[in-house]
């Protein structure tokens, strides 16, 4: 192996990279746009749901109930109609997402202890519907609790209504700030996607253009060629990751709890998995279009199953196993462990071992198939 020859290929890679300014700018800007979107656009905690009310009782108790609903901050009362049909129509039209219907004689029923209130929720948006469902429940419970307290007080009992109180403490992220949770996952995702995409496109492009054969006529050996190709991509990938992390820390105030050195070097190891997968994809695809399609499918599966966007605990076992096949799945807990929890190798050694083994296997397979493709 000759360092000189590897360096020559690396230089060629950099020259190609810097010549295509537009692509380079895009490559560097894309992760930042993504981060800003995740930081500012996505909020799964739905509140202020536009709500319409049909109150057929129109008495002091029903109004007090509606006020309690409005005061929760979850439902925003935007209008009043007179029948439950009109409520359903407003949801059909998409003017509101939820509706409250209170049948006549609410006050009388309340005295008898069998008052009914119905909530209608637009089920075509499941995420909002789920939150609304839970919120309606909580509000009703609180309201019932308040009424009960009054009842008990009238009975003259000297009792606490809440003898057991659950005090909830959330470790690492006490205010449940979304972006704190997103940053480690995004770092992992960027490391994986960028290294995979860059390697694949660079190699397929050379194959299509026939320049790989030209390079092989020179004294360079396949392994040297491969290393030379990988280095520029590795550097860009790491720059991308660092720009996300830097923005997360400086702009969004995400705390970095653990050892930065440990995180950086594990990131480098992890990037090699993407680079290896890239080699593999490039050796099975003939055109850029094919490569793009394969990458898309791989990334889709990896991101959905890896635990970045969706919780892994609820997945069926078979899918968890498939998820385990992707290195991303093993790196996400590492990233969260170091960045958010601030734990070290002593707590993470299982995931780190899994990661290292995977990277080694992937590299071995990909180097083989890359060599075969060339010889």
């Amino acid at each position, binding site marked *: 192996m000759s360092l000189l020859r590897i360096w020559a290929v690396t230089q060629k890679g950099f020259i190609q990279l810097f010549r295509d300014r537009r692509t380079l700018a895009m490559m560097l800007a894309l992760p930042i746009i993504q981060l800003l979107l995740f930081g500012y656009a996505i909020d799964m905690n739905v509140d202020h749901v536009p709500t319409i009310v049909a109150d057929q009782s129109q008495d002091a108790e029903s109004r007090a109930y509606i006020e309690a609903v409005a005061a929760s901050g979850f439902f925003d009362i935007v209008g009043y109609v007179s029948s439950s049909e009109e409520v359903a129509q407003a949801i059909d039209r998409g003017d509101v997402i939820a509706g409250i219907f209170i049948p006549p004689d609410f006050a009388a029923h309340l005295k008898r202890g069998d008052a009914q209130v119905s909530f209608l929720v637009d089920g075509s948006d499941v995420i909002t519907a789920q939150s609304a469902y839970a919120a309606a429940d909580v509000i009703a419970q609180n309201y*019932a609790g308040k009424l009960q307290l009054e009842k008990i007080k009238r009975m003259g009992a000297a009792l606490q209504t809440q003898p057991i109180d659950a005090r909830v403490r959330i470790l690492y992220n006490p205010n449940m700030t979304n972006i704190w949770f997103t940053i480690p996952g995004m770092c992992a995702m960027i490391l994986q996607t960028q290294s995979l995409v860059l390697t694949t496109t660079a190699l397929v492009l050379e194959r299509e253009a026939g320049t790989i054969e030209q390079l092989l006529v020179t004294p360079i050996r396949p392994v040297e060629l491969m290393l030379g190709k990988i280095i520029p991509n590795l550097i860009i990938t790491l720059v991308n990751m660092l720009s996300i992390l830097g923005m997360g820390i400086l702009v969004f105030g995400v705390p970095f709890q653990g050892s930065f050195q440990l995180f950086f070097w594990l990131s480098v190891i992890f990037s090699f998995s993407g680079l290896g997968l890239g080699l593999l994809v490039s050796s099975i695809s003939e055109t850029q279009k094919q490569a*793009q399609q394969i990458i898309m499918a791989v990334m889709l599966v990896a991101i959905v199953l890896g635990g970045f966007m969706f919780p892994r605990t609820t997945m069926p076992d078979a899918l968890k196993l498939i998820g385990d096949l992707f290195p991303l799945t093993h790196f996400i807990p590492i990233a969260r462990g170091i960045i958010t929890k601030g734990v070290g190798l002593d707590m993470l050694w299982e995931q780190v071992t899994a990661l290292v083994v995977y990277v080694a296997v992937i590299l071995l397979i990909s180097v083989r198939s890359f060599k075969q493709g060339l010889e």
Partner: protein
Amino acid sequence: MQGESAMQSQAKRIYALMWKELIQILRDWRTLLMILGLPILEMFLFAYAVNMTIDHIPTVVADLSMGERSQTFLDAMQTSEFFDLELYTSSEQQVIQAIESGKAVAGIVIPPDFEAQIDRGSAQVLIIFDGSDAYTVQSGYRAASAIAQTQSMVVVAQKLQRAGAAEFSPPVFTSTRILYNPNMDGMIFMLPGVIGILLQMLTMNLTAMSVVREQELGILEQILVTPARPFDLIVGKMVPNILISVLDLAIILVVGIYWFKVPFQGSFLLFALLSLLFIISGLSMGVLISTIAKTQKEAQQITSVVLMLSMLLTGMMYPRSTMPPAVSAVGGLIPVTYYLRIIRGIMTKGIGLTFMWQDVLVLVIYGLIVIVAAAKLFKKRLD
């Protein structure tokens, strides 16, 4: 050729170009297979992997009271199915350690004098969550406070009964009805989203990549040397791609309706017409991108930016109601936003034009603008 009218010869040219395109598509069967297989993969993934309500949270317990009531409380946690009490330790510190090492995601600490505290009416249970896992915390938080509240009610009820009070029932019953999707089936929600995003991605990609590729290879110029005019070329390219897109849409619909049993409530004809419009405007968008991008790599990057924006901002998965106005406005520029509302309206709600003419109008206007712009710019670029 002499007897033919201009129209006839143009039709012939378009037909020839269509054939060429179709042959190219069929020859690259690997790509074709991926195009047709990707939506199915995506649907199965979303259907079986994505479940946002979390239960059976691995939980570590430190019961320092070891009494009857603390056991009742822990039983209530366990039977709620939200918490799986897997590990038992003897101090708060060990609970935190278990969470730190990732062995558990939640922890419960019951203080030593729990029983006495209940009698005094002020017992406190400490529940600790791993905050690095936002999804679990959100579900667990709610479940934990609900369980504590019910347990409180039980204790109060017992005391009241002992004091000789009459029956004790909650005075208000709420019934929540979820319209259109009573069981909150995730697939009913995801299917329209998958259709919208995939159609957009597919249509844009198909034309953008193939036009740019032909530009790169100089094939476009070669074709233009023949009597074919830019208009013929673009129609010849569009038609086979429309066929593929429609085929893709049909596959998703069939799998969704027959395998996942997603109900189709509204008018199929309306759905088909508006989808066709959306497909044609997506293909035109691809042509527009091809006039900007010089290489396939650039085209790919532009389409992936559009794709990313569409996935995050159009309401496919993430609620649009919680976005800040500026971000929401950016989402409003993407046609998928309107198309999604329309097909959710038709498929899930079963409503017609009277309820959603505004969204349809926006989609139609957008479609016309893109198609005209694409035709103009493409012609200009070639002339």
